[in-house]
């Protein structure tokens, strides 16, 4: 495991603990950068997708939540998916269970835009109900199941929709074992919001001309993409795992944080320690 990957692991664990640390519940006015259900008994902050839907269904023009997405997206693009999302981290851990992965092209990433438009924007406005929350597997994992286990009254009002949600969670878990981060790549509406910002964000991936296009980066990439094909494409979650290769670098506001084209190994040999 490289230094960046080790740091990312600590940050992912830290982010999951901070967002679900039980105390400091006064922070629930503040959306988190990632999908984290505020109904979780331990949650201290607000889920941005849940907040967005509830503001829409209550007739608010969600200016602050939109501004939050715009500012965060302009600063770091989809980095919060790669560094701060507890459900993304769970999927990565599940991914370690299955050795042989099913390859699914990122071309199907448009699905998450449809899910955003239908379940998180249009239906909450029309039906006055947070439809995405009602289907969200992250919510089932972080809040639905714990609440049902902890509270007898809640267990009594459980209906068929709960079991549909559990079914969706089981499907998401099974898919995460077989496919790399499938929920993030094909379903997550929050990822859909952040994705277009990758092209314009202050945090940018850079690929140097010495890249040999060996596709070793695709093998270690948690979202199965070749970084040279589109270093700032919407599919990239900015995990920076590919910076193990010296041809790949990162810049912030035009300043190089990790220099692309620096001295060091490139291609397959560069990732040997990360496998």
């Amino acid at each position: 495991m490289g230094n960046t990957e080790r740091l990312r692991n600590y940050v992912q664990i830290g982010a999951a603990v901070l967002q679900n640390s039980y105390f400091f519940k006064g922070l629930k006015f503040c959306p988190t950068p990632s999908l984290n259900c505020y109904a979780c008994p331990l949650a201290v902050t607000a889920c941005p997708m849940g907040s967005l839907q509830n503001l829409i269904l209550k007739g608010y023009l969600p200016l602050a939540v939109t501004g939050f997405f715009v500012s965060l997206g302009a600063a770091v693009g989809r980095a919060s998916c790669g560094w701060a999302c507890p459900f993304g981290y769970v999927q990565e851990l599940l991914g370690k269970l299955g050795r042989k992965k099913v390859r699914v092209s990122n071309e199907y990433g448009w699905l998450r835009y449809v899910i955003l438009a239908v379940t998180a924007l249009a239906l909450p406005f029309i039906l006055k109900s947070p439809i995405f929350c009602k289907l969200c597997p992250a919510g089932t994992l972080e809040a639905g199941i714990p609440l049902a286990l902890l509270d007898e009254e809640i267990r009594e009002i459980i209906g068929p929709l709960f079991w549909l949600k559990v079914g969706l969670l089981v499907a998401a878990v099974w898919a995460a074992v077989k496919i790399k981060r499938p929920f993030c790549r094909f379903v997550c509406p929050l990822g859909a919001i952040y994705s277009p910002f990758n092209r314009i964000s202050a945090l940018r991936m850079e690929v140097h001309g010495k890249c040999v296009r060996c596709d070793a980066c695709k093998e270690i990439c948690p979202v199965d993409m070749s970084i040279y094909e589109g270093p700032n494409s919407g599919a990239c979650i900015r995990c920076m795992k590919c910076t193990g290769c010296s041809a790949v670098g990162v810049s912030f506001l035009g300043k190089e944080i990790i220099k692309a084209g620096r001295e060091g190994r490139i291609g397959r040999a560069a990732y040997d320690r990360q496998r």
Partner: protein
Amino acid sequence: MKKFPIAATVAIFMLGAALIVAGGLGGEFRAIFLNATILCLSCIGVQ
């Protein structure tokens, strides 16, 4: 591909910050807080 100018990125960031302030003045954070503190039960498929 031509890189997106950094100044435009900073301008978009500032626009986002302005929207956050505007939403806050409109009581949006209070609405988020109230929504996040009540048990909405969407997580168990009930509301």
